[in-house]
């Protein structure tokens, strides 16, 4: 995880907006100030860390409602790798034989290999899934849906081919 330096400067207006909101006793009145702020993710990280330090100082490491909220967020933000999504998807489909991770010219992509790609409904659904992965993970630059015949002997086209799913 990237270490955030305490001495990084916060932009003055965002910090003021945040400070003004948080020092008010009635948080509900300050909510719109927070919603309207345009602080960067980095700034929010710093502010969150400051708040967590403060809560820890006051409450020690005992669980409280604030730490429950933090825990939920951390769980939600845990990095999920695209391979996990792909394997999970392949496991849910009977006609997916293999999935490859491929690399070429420093670009990363994947191939789904079906028993038979001439079943429209399935092949189109798997392409749809491929587009979802492309949208979700910036590190993936492309994908293909092929079948056991059309994907035969294509390894030479790539720098690296790794099997990430094989039907049991």
């Amino acid at each position, binding site marked *: 995880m990237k270490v955030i330096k305490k001495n990084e400067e916060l932009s003055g207006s965002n910090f003021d907006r945040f400070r003004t909101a948080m020092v008010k006793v009635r948080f509900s009145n300050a909510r719109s100030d927070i919603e309207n702020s345009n602080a960067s993710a980095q700034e929010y990280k710093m502010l969150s860390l400051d708040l967590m330090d403060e809560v820890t100082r006051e409450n020690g490491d005992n669980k409280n409602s604030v730490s429950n909220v933090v825990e939920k967020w951390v769980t939600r933000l845990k990095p999920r790798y695209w391979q996990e999504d792909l394997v999970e998807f392949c496991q849910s489909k009977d006609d997916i034989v293999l999935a490859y991770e491929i690399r070429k010219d420093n670009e990363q992509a994947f191939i789904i290999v079906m028993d038979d*790609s*001439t079943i*429209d409904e399935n*092949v*189109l659904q798997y*392409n*749809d899934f*491929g*587009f979802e992965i492309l949208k979700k993970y910036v590190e993936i630059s492309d994908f*293909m*849906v*092929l079948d056991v*015949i*059309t*994907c*035969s*002997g*294509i390894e030479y*086209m790539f720098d690296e081919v790794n099997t990430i799913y094989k039907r049991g």
Partner: protein
Amino acid sequence: MPTAQEHKKKYQDNKEVLNSVFDCNNKLHCNWIVTISFYISLHIIEAKLAKEQNLHSRDHKQRDEMIENCGLFSRNVKNKYKQLKSNCWSARYSKNDMAPTIANQMKRFAEEIEAEVFPEQNK
């Protein structure tokens, strides 16, 4: 850069060649049927991009981005075009030849893309 009309002429010429020269039941023709079907769909896409938004792509990657972001194409069209592209790639680089079933499917996908993108062509 080609106009929408020029792209239309290209895909119609390709269709003419595909229908008059190639036979899906002839295994020797299947790789070419898949390849031509992909280029038919490519020119249909390019014609639509040029006509509706004056967009012109330089390569496959840029075209893919335009297809994704222009808002002109349904998921059905995007998925069929993507499958045509993948099989066209395989027709050129796989050690196996395309089967007649796939050649038929890809030819049909190109027709279905045309029917959805330019419905007036099929009236």
